[in-house]
Each structure stands twice: as C-alpha cells, then as structure tokens.
C-alpha cells in the first residue's frame, strides 16, 4: 500500500506498544527513588537517577517511533488534529499548575499578611500570637523565618530576562516563517538564536539564584517570600530548560531535513510551549518581581 493511501481518509490505529509500560516503570522508579532520597533511606538518589534514565529511554523510543511514523507519511489530518488538541490541553494543565502557586502568592499577600497583622476578625491572632507584627511585603512572616533578606528587584536581571524571553518569542516566530517559506537556513538560524536566548535566560537565572543565596540571604527558607519566589521562578526555570531542550531537538530535526511547510506539528507544539513559558514569565515579572 502506498504512503498516499495511508495519508488519505482512513482512521489511524497504532499497534500495541511497549513504551507506556516502560514509562510507568520509569515513573514508579523515579518516585520511589525521590521518596527514599527525601527520607534518607538506602540508595534513594541512585534509584531516582535510574528512574530518570528509564523515562529518558522511554521518551527517546516513543518520540522516535512517532517521528518515524510522521516522516513516513502515516499520519493524516485527523491524527494531526488529535495531536493539536492533546498539546493544547496539556499546556492548559500546566497553566493550572502554575495557577496553584500564583494563587498561593496572592492569598499570602492579600489575606494572610493583613490577618497576621490583626485585620478583619483576627485581632487576637495578632495580639496573642504575633504581638507587634507589622504586615507588609516582602515578608518572611512574624517569625522572621530564615532571617532578614534582601528582596528581588524588577530592574537588573529580571528586566534583562524579560527582554531575553520576549525576544526569543520573536525569533521562534521568525523561524516559523522561515519554515513556512521553505527557507531552511532561516529556520535553523533563528531556532539556534531562540535556543541561545533560552539557555542565556537559564544561566542568568542561575546567577540570580547564586546571588540570592550568597549575598542577599534570600533562600527557599526565607518565609513566604522565599517560598513563593523560588517555587514560582524555579518551576518556570525548569520549564524554560525543558522548552530549550525541546527546541534543540527541533533544531536537530530541522538540520536533518524534517518538516515541510505544511506538515510540521512538532515545531508548532514546541513553539506553543515556548510562548506559554513566555507568558508565565510575564506573570512572574509583574507579580513576583515588580508589584
């Protein structure tokens, strides 16, 4: 049967696959390893790393299969649409994950701080438990948890990183234009620029963290400010790293000659993810660094 018949109007049904069960074993190993590591039992660290390796192996294998099938012309437009829905709602789930931490930040700033200071019906919370506590932000709470610290400023590295991420959103779009025009040189160069910008962001953030820990006495343990700051920016940084790795894979595939002007969902999925990371950063810049 020709590739043409594949690509036409029938339903695509894959055969059985071993990758998911490998993924489950990997996930289970990772989780058991992480938990034993946290509880200082046995070889937790190594079990964790082994689990990650299994997951990595699964991802190589699974994505490899999908890429082979895609390049082999097996997928039709219906499969393409299913992938699009899949990626869209995956990103939405990520948005909600960040939403939980933004929610914690807003709740702490808008409610917990004033309540600890005795507002609303919490007069005795302040008088009996935390006498003399003046609420404010940035705060490490009435217990001065973690000791005095210097908060982050919106100028400096944060502003630079904003510029970097916004530019990377632009370069990835130019790369997309290049792909659509069939201009592979433009595609590859601008993908490379995007990746460089992405990793620069991560390096600058690492520098910012080191500064915070060594000079500002700002750590994960610096009360609610440190908690929200590092968890929000940390998870975001993790997503930037993952996004940059995904962009690198796309670059390698582009160099190998994958993707056509009309058939390049993987590129689009990764660029959607990249824009999502960008938008989350804007939220962070405004609510964590600026306001």
């Amino acid at each position, binding site marked *: 049967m020709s590739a043409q018949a594949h690509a036409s109007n029938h339903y695509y*049904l894959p055969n059985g696959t071993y990758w998911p069960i490998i993924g489950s074993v990997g996930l289970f190993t990772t989780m058991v390893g992480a*938990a034993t590591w946290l*509880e200082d039992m046995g070889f937790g660290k190594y079990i964790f790393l082994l689990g990650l390796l299994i997951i990595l192996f699964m991802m190589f294998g699974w994505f490899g299969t999908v890429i082979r099938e895609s390049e082999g012309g097996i997928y039709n437009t219906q499969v393409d649409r299913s992938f699009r829905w899949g990626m869209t709602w995956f990103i939405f789930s990520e948005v909600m994950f960040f939403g939980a931490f933004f929610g914690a930040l807003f709740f702490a700033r808008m*409610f917990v701080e004033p309540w600890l200071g005795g507002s609303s019906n919490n007069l005795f919370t302040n008088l009996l438990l935390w006498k003399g506590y003046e609420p404010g932000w940035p705060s490490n709470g009435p217990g001065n948890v973690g000791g005095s610290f210097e908060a982050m400023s919106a100028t400096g590295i944060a502003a630079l990183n904003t510029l970097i991420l916004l530019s990377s959103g632009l370069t990835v779009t130019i790369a997309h234009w290049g792909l659509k025009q069939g201009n592979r040189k433009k595609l590859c160069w601008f993908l490379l620029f995007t990746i460089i910008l992405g990793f620069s962001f991560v390096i600058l953030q690492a520098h910012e963290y080191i500064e915070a820990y060594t000079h500002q006495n700002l750590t994960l343990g610096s009360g609610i400010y440190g908690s929200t700051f590092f968890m929000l920016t940390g998870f975001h940084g993790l997503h930037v790293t993952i996004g940059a790795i995904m962009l690198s894979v796309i670059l390698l595939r582009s160099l190998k000659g994958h993707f056509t002007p009309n058939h390049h969902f993987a590129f689009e999925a990764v660029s959607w993810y990249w824009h999502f990371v960008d938008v989350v950063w804007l939220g962070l810049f405004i609510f964590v660094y600026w306001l």
Partner: protein
Amino acid sequence: MSTATVAHEHHAEHPSGIWRWITTTNHKDIGTLYLVFSLIMFFIGGAFAMLIRAELFEPGMQLMDPLFFNEMTTLHGLIMIFGAIMPAFVGLANWMIPMMVGAPDMALPRMNNWSFWILPFAMLLLLSTMFMPGGGPAGGWTMYPPLMLQTGVAFPFVIFAVHMLGISSVMGAINVIATILNLRAPGMSLMKMPLFVWSWLITAYLLIAVMPVLAGAVTMMLTDKYFGTSFFNAAGGGDPVLYQHVFWFFGHPEVYIMILPAFGIISEIIPTFARKPLFGYSSMVYAISSIAFLSFIVWAHHMFTVGMPLTAQLFFMFTTMLIAVPTGVKVFNWVATMWRGSLSFETPMLFAIAFVILFTIGGFSGVMLALVPADYQYHQTYFVVAHFHYVLVTGAAFAIMGAVYYWLPKWTGHMYNETLAKWHFWLTAISANVLYFPMHFLGLAGMPRRIPDYPVQFTDLNMLASIGGFAFGLAQLLFVFVIFQCVRGGKKAEARAWEGAHGLEWTLPSPPPYHSFTEPPAAQLIWAHPYRDD
C-alpha cells in the same frame, strides 16, 4: 471498503497473553483493564470500610489502635475516589465513547495505554505505605497540614502517588477531549451527541483544570516538610488554611468529576427503559455545563468553620445553593422522561431509579450543609459522612453498577442473569440505606467523623449502620458473580440488547468488533438516537 481493510491490516499482529494487556492500544482492552482495576480497588477500599464498621460496631477500642483506624479512613477515601470511582468512569468512557460517537478507537491510543498503566503503580505506591515505619497516611483523604506533616516515612510516597494519579487522570482526560472533538462521525454535531459523551466532555475539562492544582497543593506540602518553605506555616507568613483553599479548589470540581459521568449514564438508561426520548436534551447539556462552571466558585463551603470573612461565607453559601437549580433541572428531566413512558424494570433501570431518588436525598443534605449557620453544627460530624456517601455510593457507584448491567450484554455478547442481578440490586439498595441513613441522625446528634470510639448513646445507630455495611459488602460478591457468569456465557445478546435502546453503540454486533467503527457510520444511523424527536 478499502478504508476498512487498511485499518485491519494495520492491526493484524498483537501479542497474546499478559503482554496483550500490557501493550494494548485498543479502547476496549483498556476499558476492560480500567473496569477490572476499579473493581479490585472497590473491594480493597471496601475491606477497609468493613474494618471501620467493625471497630464502630460498639463503643470502646476493640480491633485496632487509633492510628490504624485513621489510616483506614484515609486510605478508604483515597482508594475509593482515585482507585474505584474515577477509574470506573474512565473505563466506561474508554469502552463507550468511541462506539457512541462512531469512531474506531480513542484519538490517542498509545497515551491511552499509559494513562491506565500508571494507575496500578500509583496504587502500589500508596498501598505500600501501610507497611512502612510509622504507618500509612492517617490525616484523612484531604491531607490537611499540619496534621498530615506528622506522617512518618510514608509521607513522600503518598505525595508522589497523588502526583502519579494526577498525571494519569490528565492524560486520560486529554484523550477523551481529543476523541470527542475530533473523531465524531460525520453529521454528529455536538448537540446530537449522546449525553454520556457530553457529560464526559465536561468532566474531562474539569479534570485537566483541577488535577494540576492538587499536584501544586501537595507539592507545597512536600517542600514545606523537606525544603524549608513556609506555605502552610504562619510563623513564616504562610497559612495552613491556604492548603485548604488550594485543595478544595481541586476538591469541589473533583466531586463533580465523580458525579457528572453518572448523570450521563442515568440519561442513557432512563430513556431506554421508559421507551421515550430523553426529556429536555438541551437543558440537560446546559445544566451539566452550569454545574461544572459553578463547581469552580463554591469550594470554601467545605471549610466554613475554619475562619473566613463573613462576605466570603455568604458568597460561597449562595453560589453553593445555586447548584441546586441545574441539578434540579436534571432530576425533573429524568422524572419527566419516565412520565407516561412504557416502563420496564430491568436491573439497569432499577439502579437508575434508585439513583434518582437516593442521589436527590444526598443533594438535599448538601443544601442543608450549604447553609453557613447550619453547617457550623453539622461540620465534621457523621451528617457529612451520610451526605457524601449518598451522593458517591448511592449516586456515583449505583450509576456505575447500572452502567455495567446496561452495557454488559454489549461488551460480552451475553445477557446476564436477571434474577440474580435483581437480587444484587435489592440487597445493595436496602443495605446501603441501612448503612448510611442512620448516619444522618448520628451526625445531627453530634457524633464526630473520623473517630474510632464514641459515647454509649450512639451505639444503637452505629450497630445498625455496621450491619448494613456488612450486608452491603457481602452483596457486592453477588455483583462479581453475576459479571463473571455473564462473561463466561449466557443467553446470546442481540446487537440491540434492550428493546428501547438507541444510539450508535447498539448498531454494532454484541460483542462489537475489535475496532468499533473502522469507517465512519452512515449519517442516517446517527439520527436514530433517542434524544431528540426531530
């Protein structure tokens, strides 16, 4: 047709034995896996409930120490919610949605396999905590800090098990959405979809929206314990109440995740056995959508007594009571569907009618709990336990049992033993009420939930509830027997196993072919479904 053969050729080879089930990408195989898994979990969670009822049979400490009792209540909740009810609905979705929308399979078959195969590992992780030093989780299924932070070695295992359950649910939900939006047969517009499909579409949105929020909540707890963060520590400017807010932002949509598919099932069963189209199809769709929307703005009614501004209490009280409106629409529509129908009372219909009555009782006690001043009295008592068991057992679980009887002939190609099934229904329905109804009175009289011992004045009703509980547990063995018997053999089922059944799944032979529809069904088949007269 050549299109049909292409699909078959493509699926010619698949491994046999255990590997068939481990590697399968087929929606029916995966649906079966989900359903069997959920049945096993139903019995494990049920065994824990039996231990709870045995300890509560009379006052005093008889069988276990309080920590173990608390582990039982905690794990009973987690297992029944994440192991039994949710996977059962996903199993039904897997089996039925492709057949109902005229598709060959789910949209993302490989991911479908992974969604399932994460579950046994997650539950293994969760159940293994019982054997760890310090015991399993004992802070209740809601896992409030700071109590939950006292868990021993088991703590991170529980948290990571929750993460895995969340990953599985989100992937399953994405698959459901992609299937419904992308694989419907030509001509099946959204407003012509069967209601079970509609209910699952909305449930899937809820899952994707809230499971990550739960992951966020437990992650914060994890970093509070191991990495020195202060999310739930007032000294550091955090607040334990923050956990409750984030948790219930997940938790309230979660309870609708467990009831909306049940609404869908009841809306399939009642028209079939009333031999009438469903009354008010579009109002049913709008009612489900409104309930789903409202579920996001009612969460704090679970924590009225925790200390919150009066305005917040009023807001959450009014939004909660508002839910009674769309829910009432649904109940009235089901009753109106039965009105002047030619009813027959096969087992699925018995479960459906019991659902309508008993779920409504659970709904009414929910409205009572929604009232802030009244809730101050009911909070943390057995009245709450009675309420949510009426909606989750005589609601969700009854709908699942009804669905199993309704579609068993389609799945197996055999009719089940109607006499035994009716015995199962009556034993279940009566014992469930003996079990849960006295809990209302216990709660109103002031018996707190989650305690292993109680004052003597509560003895009679507790004994009654325990007897009902044991009977309920035993009755479920009959359920397994009927299913087993039906899988093994029995009277051949027609393609349209029920005289009054419509919808695409009944146009396929019983049992249906491995790939339900290898080519899109003809448009005229779709019009022959029961929801609209036009």
